């Protein structure tokens, strides 16, 4: 019972963290163009940002 006092909050916090991360990604438009994101990996860009 004593371990539950800190294990449960940790478990819930980690779960909530994942949920929060997902919702953040959704809000910032990272799911708007899944196909594009998959293809953009292949684009070569110089460190300066200019392709």
């Amino acid at each position, binding site marked *: *019972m004593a371990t*539950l006092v800190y294990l*449960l909050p940790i*478990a*819930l916090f980690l*779960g*909530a963290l*994942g*949920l929060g991360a*997902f*919702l953040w990604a*959704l809000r910032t438009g990272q*799911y*708007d*163009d*899944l*196909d*594009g994101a998959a*293809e*953009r*990996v*292949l*684009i070569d860009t110089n460190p300066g940002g200019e*392709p």
Partner: protein
Amino acid sequence: MSCCAPAIDMMLDMERAKSAGPSDDEILLSRRQLGNGLSQIDLAVPSVHCAACIQAIETGLSRLANIESARVNLSTKRVSVNWRGSAVPDIVPTLARLGYPAHLADELGAEKDGTLSELITAVAVAGFATGNIMLLSVSVWAGADGPTRDLFHWLSALIAVPVMAFAGRIYFRSAWNALRHGRMNMDVPISLGVTLAYSMSLYETITHGHHAYFDASVSLLFFLLIGRTLDHLMRDRARAAVSGLVRLSPRGAIVIAPDGRRNYAALTEIEPGMRLFIAAGERIPVNAIVVEGRSDLDCSLVTGESGSQGIEPGSAVLAGVQNLTGPLTIEVTAAAKDSFLAEMVRLMEAAEQGKGAYRRIADRVSALYSPVVHVTALLSFLGWMAATGDWHLSITVATAVLIITCPCALGLAVPIVQVVAARRLFENGIMVKDGSAMERLAEIDTVVFDKTGTLTMGRQGLRDVKFSDEHDLAMAASLAAFSRHPASVAIDTAFSVRSRQRVPYENVVEHPGLGIEATLDGRCCRLGRMSWALEGGDIPDLQAGTAFSIDGALRASFDFNDSLRDDAKAAVRELAGTGLSLEILSGDKAPAVAQVAGLLSIGMFNASVLPSGKVDRLAQLRTTGKRVLMVGDGLNDAPALSSAHVSMAPATGADIGRNAADFVFLRDSLMAVPLSVQIARNADRLIRQNFALAVIYNLIAVPIAILGFVTPLIAAIAMSGSSLIVIGNALRLRAKKRGLSIFWPASVKSSSGTRESVL
């Protein structure tokens, strides 16, 4: 283009030839102003499909002056461009030069869809809660006792609150809507079951009870939301693909003021009496009369006539037809809201209302199912009350009955099958608007085809060529390359391959309505209408057709015909073979229709049918109890498409028809029709099997629940077990895929190897 060519491109090549892209004026009309002199425009670029395309477009556009940023969205196939200043940079010409014809995105599709993000958020919240509550529940089932169990129950109750509020809301809203209109849908028992389970569990928790059903109510919502989200994604994808195609109605036109000045005006500002200038290649925005100029019109989408039509001053033109060869000045006879296009929209709305609402299978089943469930739960409550007098025990049993029968499997039975089926259709280049269309397609017994653009390609194909010297053909092809007339395009594509070098013509002049003229070594070469080309030479036969002549002497003659769509014969045979009766309804003249009907051995056909006539014919079929699939593409088919039981249109059709149709097929082959019918019928069978499975499950589980043997553990196992069976059954539709794909000819198959992921 530098990379893989998906099948949709083949269709769009056709459209590309027809449309010159939006003008700067049109872009100015539809841009969004972001302030600080910054403007934004969303353009649809359907031919984007890989990283190289993204890079080519983004770097190509960024190099232009004043462009602030350009960003491609590959999923929706759009590019969003921000620029500074009032002048429009050369966005469209640059894109065209790069090989990506662009056009204005439909406002409808550009609107940010809030429903999807609400659904995804709800799935995320429900998924999080389900995982955590399940963990707590497993501990309880494993023997957690006393205060620990109470703690776990309280935690579960707490975690479930946002799910009820956020994810549950979607179902509560829908259930309330149905009840308010005196209907029943699947969401009513779902909402009732979930709410009852939650409140009863809360009571249990407060009174330190053994059994809480938080896991059941939350996981139920989670599974159902997955089904609903998949369903929505499927529709979204189809809509994005359809709205990415070229719009037919221009957003405005160049108005010639009485003093001769020319201004670009939006469509709504155009009034009868105004004079408009229409360049070659543009579409005519409103009904009008030609004042000046000669040209040829492509009326195939509007009237269903396949041949191009010559016009001269005094001819009346309908909104939506395309001006092919010469510039025209026209006088407006009707404002946009009274023009042909708007008239079609009104006919469509009337047809829609006349059709009567279709009730989805799930709703029909739940109308039977829900009362039974509710009565069973009530009876078990009353039974246990009578037997024991313990109202707490009675409520527990009644709730268990509700949870066990709560249509988790039923809620998934329909959408999961339809999503799998839609995915299969998508892989074959067919978009389906929603699940109800698939259910309706499975019921049809009659197929009505439009002719032009549906059974045929709707463009001129060479049928008969007479010539004496191969070299003449090459010369004709070189001359044809100067014109945009469909006949010229066909001659050019057919014969230009044979001549490696172009013939050095001089003084090329296109005579609208007649043909093209040019000089070569001092000799006059003409390609065009037979009587015109042979003027002053041999006595022309009174023969229609196109001729190529040098100094009036016939060198080659070409006969044109609208060619049948790929596989039209096979598709028609296949449909007839499955016992469907077939019919042609066309706006074209009788001989042309009869010829096509003869070629395809379709017995029933009606020619020269007006748009309202098509609707009347469909209404007549409906009153005799027929369920009709209408396949058509033109503006003149749009009302018929919305009045039919279910409808299909090719992607090359008029945008208004595409929006009215339930199915849109992107490839040239007409095999899309029998394939869709077959997939819809298979899906229908699987849905019925799924319902049968759900009923069998209930026959076993309900007695156990009524007898009071159900614990939360048993409920969880039974619910997920039945859902898995239903999902597994639906996936059998995918497994049959290989056997069916043999219908596709090799040419179509080879181009289908693109990445077209739906979900």
